[in-house]
């Protein structure tokens, strides 16, 4: 059973959030567990949970428990995350917007009238 977020607002696009979203957008239909996401995003394992929680609250992520027999597999059930439909659309737009902002920043710091 997928757990949907509460559909609140838009998350702050910090560098770590962008890294997580970029990792998820690379394979938007796939499910990933926490360790996979932190590996793909190049972030320290265990440090991405505030981001996952925030993205889930915004409705950009869906999560579900893995459906396995723990005795047969010999390991506990993992929690899998994937981008929701809303998340896939909004994340691409938010990442593009954030990239645009970053590109504009250096020129904004230049004194007025200075040559390009």
């Amino acid at each position, binding site marked *: 059973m997928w757990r949907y977020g509460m559909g609140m607002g838009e998350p702050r696009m910090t560098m770590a959030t962008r890294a997580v979203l970029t990792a998820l957008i690379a394979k938007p239909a796939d499910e990933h567990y926490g360790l996979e996401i932190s590996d793909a995003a190049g972030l320290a394992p265990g440090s991405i949970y505030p981001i996952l929680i925030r993205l889930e*609250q915004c409705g950009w992520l869906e999560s579900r428990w893995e459906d396995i027999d723990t005795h047969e597999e010999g390991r506990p059930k993992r*929690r899998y995350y994937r981008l929701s439909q809303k998340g896939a659309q909004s994340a691409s737009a938010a990442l593009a917007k954030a990239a645009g902002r970053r590109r504009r920043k250096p020129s904004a710091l230049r004194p007025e009238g200075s040559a390009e």
Partner: protein
Amino acid sequence: MTERAAQTRSGGLSAERLLLGFMKVAAEDFQKRYDRFPDPTEWLEEVNCNVFLPGPVSLPVLETVLDSTAGRAAFPLGIGSVGIQIPDRRIRSAERKISLALLFFPAVERAHYRAEFTAEMDEMNHSAASQFAANVLLKAPISGIHMRTAKIFGRQAT
């Protein structure tokens, strides 16, 4: 003697748990002294050294207790395999960090996240698990704030 005591006590259940407790203590003591897991014979000797045990235990009794539901839960690898899996100091430290981190989370979410973190740590080696738990602990206050603000105000804190 212990077998008889085990059989006479309340259907064997509490005696079984008592023996499991002795076995766990014996295994932990052995590991502290020799820095390795005891083999079955050493384990049996160690259990029988316990002064609180009413009498000596035999290997078949140990095997029977280990084969019970509680025994399999406490010692999943049993007596004849590579040894007893006792969480080492780094694993215990990781578990403590996770428990501490979960205090920042709303009570209703704790079980869910404990299961999630445990599953993540399951495939890591001890030092990686300890590092993972440290990162979870470091980020736990902000995770807790996100969860609580969403619940209280129905919107995200920015």
